[in-house]
């Protein structure tokens, strides 16, 4: 296997890491108004405590999760400059939306708890909800479009616009991502909390999970029937089986297994995407001769060699300390763990 192919696989791994990890914190963000809303909470004070439980399940880790996409972006730039250039300039407006969403969402996490006023918190709740929903949806639209092919000319330039991305398959991809992350996030909440909220999260996971399973199978079939290979059919089957396994485990209260199940589902969905894509990185729907491929979009061997050495040394270290963070914060949270909010007081002097 040549180094460019190796880096194609590395990118698959980076996207898997990103979507598995940020996937659940997108899910938690989208569930904020649901699990922390009127339907489940007894009153406003209870709702606020429940929201804080949800936010604290991902509090120490969401930022580290997000670095996976920055690394994926950087690695695409370094290993496949043409892919990076075509993709990022071509998908300009969706990426702009994703950036804006991530900005307000992250500030929501950091700033929400810094003032006690209900209005302040409600605004950041909105930011967290939309900031989780929009990227979940748009990453789905974007990645699905990459796999299905987009208009690219002989100069490797994207020639479509925002609306050429909003095709049925792309939109279905977006919905699948949203449904999968909702399920994954609900199971994560069930895994990380205790008491009422834990059981309610499981209930939601069970319901949304079925929708996710139906949509995901439809999408993977659609993609597979277009360009499927034996290997991608295997990963499709594993993805479906893992999701069903996750839902079964969730039903009987084995949240750890259920979480592994949804994580495997997401990983296998990404694997399916990359297997279908191979050996292209961004097929052209205009003319197959103009496909961006692993070979014609990659950096030189020397750059790839440097990157490989650095990645082989540092990735294990990163995985170790990031894993350790999850270990430090492994305890389940309940509403009783949430400290009282600072009382509303004007600043003295």
């Amino acid at each position, binding site marked *: 296997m040549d180094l460019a192919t190796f880096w194609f696989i590395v990118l698959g791994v980076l996207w898997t890491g990103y979507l598995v990890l940020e996937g659940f914190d997108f899910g938690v963000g989208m569930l904020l108004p649901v699990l922390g809303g009127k339907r489940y909470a007894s009153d406003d004070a209870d709702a606020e405590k429940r929201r*804080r439980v949800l*936010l604290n399940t991902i*509090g*120490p*880790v*969401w*930022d*580290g999760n*997000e*670095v996976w996409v*920055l*690394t994926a*972006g*950087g*690695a695409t*730039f*370094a*290993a*496949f*400059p*043409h892919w*990076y*250039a*075509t993709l*990022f*300039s071509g998908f*300009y*407006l969706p*990426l*702009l939306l994703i*950036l804006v969403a991530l*900005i*307000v969402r*992250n*500030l929501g*996490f*950091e*700033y929400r*708890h*810094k003032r006690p006023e209900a209005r302040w918190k409600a605004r950041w709740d909105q930011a967290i909800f939309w900031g989780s929903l929009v990227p979940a949806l748009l990453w789905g639209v974007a990645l699905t479009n990459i796999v299905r092919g987009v208009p690219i000319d002989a100069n490797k*330039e994207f020639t479509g616009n925002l609306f050429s991305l909003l095709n049925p398959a792309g939109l279905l991809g977006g919905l699948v991502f949203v449904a999968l992350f909702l399920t994954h996030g609900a199971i994560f909440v069930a895994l990380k909390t205790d008491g009422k909220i834990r059981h309610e999260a499981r209930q939601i996971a069970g319901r949304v999970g079925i929708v996710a399973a139906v949509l995901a199978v439809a999408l993977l079939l659609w993609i597979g029937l277009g360009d499927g290979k034996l290997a991608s059919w295997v990963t499709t089957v594993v993805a479906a089986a893992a999701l069903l396994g996750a839902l079964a485990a969730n039903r009987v209260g084995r949240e750890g297994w259920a979480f592994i199940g949804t994580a495997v589902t997401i990983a296998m969905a990404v694997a399916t995407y990359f297997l279908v894509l191979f050996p292209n990185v961004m097929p052209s729907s205009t003319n197959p001769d103009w496909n961006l491929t692993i070979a014609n979009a990659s*950096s*030189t061997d*020397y*750059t790839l060699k*440097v*990157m490989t050495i*650095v990645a082989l040394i540092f990735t294990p270290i*990163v995985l170790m*300390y*990031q894993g350790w963070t999850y270990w430090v*914060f492994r*305890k389940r*949270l309940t509403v*009783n*763990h*949430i*400290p*009282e909010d600072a009382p509303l007081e004007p600043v003295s*002097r």
Partner: protein
Amino acid sequence: MDATDLARWQFAITTVYHFLFVPITIGMSLIVAVFHTAWVRTHNPQWMRLAKFFGKLFLINFALGLVTGIVQEFQFGMNWSDYSRFVGDIFGAPLAIEALLAFFLESTFLGLWIFGWGRLPEKLHATTMWLVHIGTVLSAYFILAANSFMQHPVGYTYNAASGRAELTDFFAVLTNKVQLVTFPHVIFAAYMAGAGVVMGVSLWLMRREAKAAADDAQDVARTDAPMYRTATRIGAVLTLVAAVGVTITGDVQGKIMTEVQPMKMAAAEALYEPVPAGEGAPFSVLTVGSLDGSHANAIIEIPGLLSFLATGNFQGAVRGINDLKAEYAKTYGASGNPRVADVATAFVPNIPTTYWTFRLMIGLGIATALIAIAVLWLTRKGRTPTARWLAYAAVAAPLLPVFANSFGWIFTEVGRQPWLVFGLMTTANGVSPSVSMGEVITSMVVFTLLYGALAVVEIKLFLHYVRKGAEPFEEPQDPADRDEDAPLVFAY
């Protein structure tokens, strides 16, 4: 205004804004780590209070630096796709390595620091902030290595067949002589910014506490004024140490710049005609009127200083804009490089911008150092002064070095123009061909409005927490005998 101008404005707005927060992050993470370590070593409550207080201010600032940094990782491809294609081989690697080595370190250990109270053993907890700081410095190293390549490309070869610059020596890119001096210059400047925030905030609070004590006829020693005085002085000392570092590295940088980008040095002084050796080119502190070289208009001039900045000799020869322009036209105009052809006649950056940002960078830096000296003098031997002007100094102390940082970057980036990569690719050749002007305008408007709103939120929040001052001391919980069912010490 054409597509290139728009793309440049877009990049300038997002990048300058991002870099308002970065130097504060680098500098303050060091100071918070120092405070936290001082607590662990002495168990003197003031260090714990200062670590938590400045930790909170640090986080308010860090959050914006982080989110605006995500934009940076994407927008090379979004707005500068031809640039990304051309140098991806070289420029992408440090960016990817920055994410892998620095961003993971910063974000993971910052999460541990924020939520670690009462959960991590205290030594380990203090270590997490040091790791955050190391992350910020590593991040600076790699992104500056990438930028230094643009100023002075090394370790590459031009492949005519693929039409791309290709990496041949990564070590050379990391040890670019521009990089080796830019990195310490930027780090020292960042320390000035972080120290400026700590000095300014502490000074303001010290004055407030001391004044309140005086008004109520209380003993100042029993207020928080002495604690803030200590923090003020630590900020002031670090400001001065960093100022010395900035000066020394800046001096070396000037000489390297003269060597590799002589046009930038000429543009810094708006010097049109060369000054031969032995005559000594002066440095104008202030001028009036236009800087188009039609007539001399300096009000204050320091003889020989430009020669010294450029060459280390007050009599050294300095080249002028006009002769460099002629030389560049000859060298690059006839090079046949398609990425240069568009500017065969215009190799001059925007002179008023380079001229004034260069002076503002230096002037604001000097002003910051002067404040630090004054503060150290006035707070000597346990004094807690309350003079009114100190309140203004407290406001100026964080702002001046941050803006000095901005002006330094505007100078170095505008001074490189019209090059995107010096000698290899002009800026106009780097923009994304598939991105429409409407798209660039959309993103520029969106980011400008969003960033403006966020600045208001950030500053209000920051001031709110400054006014609140440090929280009272609470004996920290030993993680070993933590009650698993008790409320968290810190929670969102």
